[in-house]
């Protein structure tokens, strides 16, 4: 209760004033925290100096001098530690994004499958979930890397599909596209197709809401996105030349290689996280009252449509918050990459760079801040999506 503005203020010792006291304690707490931080920083500086250990971030500009197995941007040994950091970060993001996509697809499928009325499908989904969510992710990574992918034949006995795609212990070799003159025309055609598809999608939705008539959006979109660039390609010439990998010397040269470390890590993380997502999806669907299904049935909607248009949109409100946690876990678990030599941020920057420079404090704090930033970014994105999907109260 706020005292009436006109009523005389209760006067007394400042020390007995709860408001004043609260302020004092908060200020003292802040001072203590700042002082502790300052003490730690100062003492660290002093000790580093007295032990002759370099400090500061100057090393980021020095030349790294070692090779890296996989980099998404150009890299040579003369590039700086700063660039190595970026490569590690991109490799971490790559495996996280791939993992999140696969885990979500697989998780939704399994969550729905577990609720299936088909006995076999539902039991298989249960079996999958119970097995994979109860085995630690590191062991699963080892399983895929050492037990499965280590038994693929060597480069000279590669398995191949039509002499264009090759699989061996060094990785999966795919033909890589090189753009030609026709590329820009095809790109424009592709963008136009996407724009038209979006327009059709909006119109179809409006029509459905106005008249209840449905339009086959998926088929037209696929036809447009693939068909239009193909037609343009016929006119302007092939947009790509495909570079086929070829066995030269020790290894396949040319083309595009997916390294087994990336495959093992992505598989293990997606399969592990999918088991959790499946349970979240199941919980979400079960939270939608059965009356909704019955209402949809009585309207004569088919099972698939009921699921897609009635159940899932309502279930998403329950699903999204815990799903965010699973995405965060996946991104953080990607640091287990170090165990199988995938050059992620931890293995490359907090491992090799730390060791070559000896600057433990700097590299570890940078690495920790990066994971913090990645996790906060995922949270923000998912919160925004959650807000969009949340029940709009009218």
């Amino acid at each position, binding site marked *: 209760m706020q005292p009436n503005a006109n009523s005389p203020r209760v006067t007394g010792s400042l020390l007995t004033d709860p408001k004043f006291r609260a302020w004092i304690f908060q200020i003292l707490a802040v001072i203590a925290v700042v002082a502790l931080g300052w003490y730690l920083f100062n003492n660290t500086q002093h000790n580093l100096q007295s032990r002759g250990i370099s400090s500061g971030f100057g090393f980021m500009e020095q030349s790294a001098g*070692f090779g890296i197995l996989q980099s998404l941007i150009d890299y040579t*040994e003369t590039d700086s530690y700063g660039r190595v950091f970026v490569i590690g970060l991109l490799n971490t993001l790559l495996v996280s994004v791939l993992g999140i996509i696969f885990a979500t697809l697989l998780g939704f499928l399994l969550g729905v499958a577990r609720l299936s009325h088909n006995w076999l499908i539902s039991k298989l989904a249960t079996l999958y979930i119970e097995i994979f969510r109860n085995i630690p992710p590191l062991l699963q990574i080892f399983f895929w890397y050492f037990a499965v992918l280590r038994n693929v034949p060597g480069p000279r006995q590669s398995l191949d599909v039509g002499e264009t795609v090759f699989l061996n212990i060094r990785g999966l070799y795919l033909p890589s596209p090189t753009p030609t003159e026709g590329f820009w025309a095809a790109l424009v055609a592709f963008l136009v197709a996407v724009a038209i598809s979006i327009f059709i999608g909006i119109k179809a939705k409006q029509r459905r809401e106005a008249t209840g008539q449905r339009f086959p959006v998926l088929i037209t979109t696929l036809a447009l996105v693939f068909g239009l660039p193909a037609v343009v390609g016929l006119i302007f010439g092939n947009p790509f030349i495909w570079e086929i990998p070829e066995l030269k010397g020790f290894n396949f*040269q040319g083309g595009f290689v997916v390294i*087994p470390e990336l495959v093992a890590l992505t598989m293990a993380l997606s399969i592990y996280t999918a088991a959790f997502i499946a349970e979240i999806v199941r919980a979400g669907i079960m939270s939608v009252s059965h009356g909704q299904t019955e209402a949809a049935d009585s309207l004569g909607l088919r099972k698939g449509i009921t699921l897609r248009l009635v159940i899932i949109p309502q279930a998403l409100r329950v699903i999204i918050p815990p799903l965010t946690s699973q995405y965060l876990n996946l991104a953080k678990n990607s640091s287990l990459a*170090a165990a199988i030599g995938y050059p992620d941020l931890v293995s490359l920057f907090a491992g*090799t760079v730390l060791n070559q420079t000896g600057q433990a*404090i700097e590299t570890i704090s940078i690495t920790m801040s990066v994971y913090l930033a990645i996790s906060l970014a995922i949270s923000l994105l998912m919160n925004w999506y959650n807000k969009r999907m949340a029940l709009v109260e009218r």
Partner: protein
Amino acid sequence: MKFAKTTLAALAAAVTLGVSVQAQAGATLDAITAKGFVQCGISDGLPGFSYADSKGQYVGMDVDVCRAVAAALFGDATKVKYTPLTAKERFTALQSGEVDMLSRNTTWTSSRDAAMGLNFAGVNYYDGQGFLVNKKLGVTSAKELDGAAVCIQAGTTTELNLADYFRANNMKYTPITYDKSDESAKALEAGRCDVLTSDQSQLYAQRIKLAKPDDYVVLPEVISKEPLGPAVRQGDADWFNIVKWTLFAMVNAEEMGVTMSNVEDLAKSSTNPDVRRLLGAEGEFGKDLKLPKDWAVQIVKQVGNYGESFDRNVGAGSELKIARGLNDLWNKGGLQYAPPVR
């Protein structure tokens, strides 16, 4: 889990460097004397240098350095506790004070001396980087390795030398990097890589651990200088001196013909002034080093001289059968040379 261990070590470094009282001269030595044993960082399993034998005892050339330091300091070579470290963990472990000394086939370089705050006490093994390949590949020279996939240990000088060598010879390679040398060896066997590169001594040691050692051959090229030796952290000159002179004592003992079997007799009866000074019969050299008078006697009696340690662990008396080569004494055509005790 390696990553957790590395991170923990790094965090420990951050915390201890932050919280510990400011380093003083003699602090390390005082702490070791007080606790009564030497905490020694060794390799995580490298035959000949540091590995656990069939009885579970750590043995090897690097282990011998730790034992010799304990023998000099406490008169008892068993007063050592070992911390097996990967290449990636080793420096943070030493910097943070988790170990007192590092005796882990570590290459002496300028940046490790200057930027990492280490002091190398000397060189107990002169090595160079080489390549181990499967005979099936039909490769006879490292110059034929263009395009090869190469297995290496993360965070080593070999990682850097490899890049330099391939760049200098205008060749391409794919680096496959693991934390542990065992993982690299397994990857070579499985065919994940064509070549394993490391210091030559390590290659010989790794080879005898493979399922079919005879299928693999070490290529003739040596592409770098790898002076391997024990290191301590900076800030305690007394402790640095003890480790340094332990190493020198072992080399001097070999040069003077002092061995495990004759050291006690020589300590009493030798008339050679060099031997008398080393073994404490003349002068107060042990006291200057803050060691007992019979420090060198204890080293040789319990661990042996440098040549004995070499033969027993990596040389003629071992499975590895590595020739003395660069590691022979200076007066026999090698590089092992120790300053005199006087």
